[in-house]
C-alpha cells in the first residue's frame, strides 16, 4: 500500500474508533455501575471496573426493589410490557403492511391523499391527544387495561408502519399484481401469496422499530395503564424515584439495563436485518 493511503486508512480507523468509544461510554458506565456495591460506588470513579461480577443489584432491581408501596421489583411490569408489546407490534405491522400494499400497488384516485392523511398521524405530538384518547377509551370501557394500551399503541403505530411498507412496495413492479390478477388471484390472495413472502426485510425493520418504540414508551404507558397493567418504563420511573436516603445507583442502573435489555437484544440480533431492510426499501437514494 502506498504510504499516503496507509495514513488515510489509519485516520479512518482512528476516527471510527474514537466515536465508537464515545458511543459506548454511557452503556459502559451504566453497566459497571450496576455491577458495583454501594461502598464501591462511593470510592471509585464511574469509569473504574467493578471489583467483581456482583449481580446483587440486578437481583434487587428484578424482584425486590420498591416501586412505591410494592416491593416486587420490575418483574410484574416486565410481563405487562410483554403483553402490550407483542400484540401491538404484530397488529400494527400487519395493518401497516396491508395498507402499504393497497396504497403502493392498487393506486386509485385519492390514494395519495389518503396516504398523506395517514402519514400525518406520525408527526403529531402525542401529548396533544391524551385527554380525548382517554375519554374515547373510557367510552370503549377499555380505559386502563392492557387491551386499551394495545389499541393505543397499535393505532399510533399504523402511520409509520404504513409509510415503511408503502415505500417498500412502491419499488416492486406493478406487473406483479397485474400478472397475479390475470392468473385469477384477488386482492388478499395476491397480498398473502406474493407480497407477504417477500416482505421479510421490511417486516424486520417495522417490527424492530415498533418494538423499541412501544417498549420504550412512557407517556402512553403511564397515562393509559391501570395498576395491573403498568409497563416497565413506569416501573423503572417509580423505582428510580423511590429512594431510602442513599440513592442506590447500582440498583437504578441495573433496573435501567433490565428495562433496556429486550430492545438491546432485538437490536443486536436484528440490527443487521434492520440495516438491510432499510437499504432494501425505506431509503431511496
Amino acid at each position, binding site marked *: 500500500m502506498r504510504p499516503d493511503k496507509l495514513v488515510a486508512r489509519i485516520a479512518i480507523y482512528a476516527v471510527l474508533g474514537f466515536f465508537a468509544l464515545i458511543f459506548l461510554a454511557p452503556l459502559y458506565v451504566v453497566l459497571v455501575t450496576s455491577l458495583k456495591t454501594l461502598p464501591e460506588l462511593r470510592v471509585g470513579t464511574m469509569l473504574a471496573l467493578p471489583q467483581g461480577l456482583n449481580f446483587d443489584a440486578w437481583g434487587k432491581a428484578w424482584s425486590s426493589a420498591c416501586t412505591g408501596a410494592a416491593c416486587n421489583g420490575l418483574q410484574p411490569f416486565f410481563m405487562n410490557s410483554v403483553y402490550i408489546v407483542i400484540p401491538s407490534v404484530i397488529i400494527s405491522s400487519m395493518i401497516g403492511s396491508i395498507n402499504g400494499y393497497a396504497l403502493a400497488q392498487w393506486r386509485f384516485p385519492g390514494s395519495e391523499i389518503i396516504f398523506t392523511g395517514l402519514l400525518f398521524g406520525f408527526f403529531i405530538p402525542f401529548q396533544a391527544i391524551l385527554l380525548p384518547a382517554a375519554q374515547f377509551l373510557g367510552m370503549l370501557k377499555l380505559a386502563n387495561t392492557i387491551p386499551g394500551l394495545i389499541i393505543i399503541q397499535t393505532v399510533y403505530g399504523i402511520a409509520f408502519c404504513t409509510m415503511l411498507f408503502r415505500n417498500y412496495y412502491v419499488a416492486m413492479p406493478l406487473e406483479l399484481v*397485474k*400478472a397475479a390478477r390475470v392468473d385469477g388471484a384477488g386482492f388478499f390472495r395476491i397480498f398473502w*401469496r406474493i407480497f407477504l*413472502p417477500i416482505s421479510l426485510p421490511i417486516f424486520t425493520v417495522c417490527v424492530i422499530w415498533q418494538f423499541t418504540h412501544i417498549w420504550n414508551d412512557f407517556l402512553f404507558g403511564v397515562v393509559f395503564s391501570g395498576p395491573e397493567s403498568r409497563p416497565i418504563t413506569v416501573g423503572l420511573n417509580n423505582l428510580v424515584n423511590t429512594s431510602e436516603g442513599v440513592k442506590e445507583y447500582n440498583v437504578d442502573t441495573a433496573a435501567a439495563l433490565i428495562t433496556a435489555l429486550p430492545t438491546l437484544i432485538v437490536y443486536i440480533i436484528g440490527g443487521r436485518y434492520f440495516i438491510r431492510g432499510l437499504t432494501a426499501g425505506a431509503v431511496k437514494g
Partner: protein
Amino acid sequence: MTGLSIRNVHKSYGNVPVLKGINIDVAEGEFLILVGSSGCGKSTLLNMIAGLETITQGEIAIGGRVVNDLPPKSRDIAMVFQSYALYPSMTVRENISFGLEIRKVAPEERKRIVEAVAESLQISHLLDRKPRQLSGGQRQRVAMGRALARDPTLFLFDEPLSNLDAQLRIEMRSEIKMMHKRTGKTVCYVTHDQVEAMTLGDRIAVMKDGVVQQLGRPQEIYDAPANMYVAGFIGAPPMNFIPGTLEGEGSGLVMSIDTGAERRRLALPFRPADVKARPGQKVVLGLRPERITAAGASTSDPLKVRVDMTEPTGPDTLIYATLNGKRTLCRVQPFAAPKAGEAIALDFDLSRALLFDPESGARLDGGLAG
C-alpha cells in the same frame, strides 16, 4: 369467430387522450403484433384487453364475448410481461401452477400440467428454483410457462423479449413462434422491435400516438408502408429517405441525386398519373438499404457514390454515403467493401422505391408495390 375484436376503443388518463379510437379484429388463432415507438399506447391497449385498465369508450370482445365489464380473471387470457413479473417468493413450479391453483385444479392434474409445460420449454430441471436463481432467458421461459399452463383462449405479450440480450432474443423469438404454431391460440404481442414485428406476426398493427397507422401482413407493411413513419419504423437498418425535387422528363418522373462523386438524374418507376405530386414539388424518396448494392456486371447504369464510412458486419458490409445531403446506408457484400473516401459504383434498384411527402409523411406514389 374472431379471437379478439377491438372496436373504436378510446382511453384517456384524466383529460389526456392516450388511445384515440382503435379498431382491430384478430381472427381466432391469429398472431397480431402491436408495434410502435415508446409511449404510443401499446401497453395501455394490452392492459385494457386484459382488464387491468378500464375502457374509456368502445368495446373489446374476446372470443365473441364482450368483456368490458369482466375482471381479468374471468377473461380467459394469459399475459407475459416485459419484466416477466415472476412471483419472487415462489419456486418456478409454484409460479407456473399458481394460476391453476386459484382455479381449483386438482393437485395431481396441476402437477401433470406443470411438468408437461416445463418439459416443452426445457425448464424441467429448474422447477424447484426461485426466480432470482435464474438467468434472464430462463426467467423468460418461466413467464411463458406460466401463461401456457393456463391454456387460455388469448395470449397477451407485452415486450416479453426486450430484457434479453440479442442472441437470446433470437432464440426465444423462434420458440414463441413454434409455440404459437403448436397451440394455435390467438396471440396479441406488443413490441417495439421491428425485427420481432416482422418475424413473428401474422399481421402487424403499427401504432403512433394512440392511432393505428397501418394494419397488415408483415411483408405488406415492409414493402408498402402507408406512410413515412411506418416505413422508417419497420426494417433494420431503416429505410433511407433521400430528399429531392420531383422533375418531369418525357413521360416519366426523375429526381436529381448528388452523391458526392457525381450528380445524376434518376428515373423513377412511377407513372405520373399515379403520383399525388407534381414536378417541382419537394418529395422524399424511400429506398431500403438492401436495394442499394454493389454494381455487378449486370448493372446497366451504376451510380458512382463517395463512401463516408464502411461497416463490415460479417455477413454484409454497410456503406454510409451522403445523398442529397442526407446520410444513406447501402448494404453490400463483404468482398465488395471499399475504403472510406473512395468512390464506388452502386446499383440502385428503384423498383421498390417509395415516394413520400416531406411534410405530412404521406405516401405519394400510387402504391405500386402494395
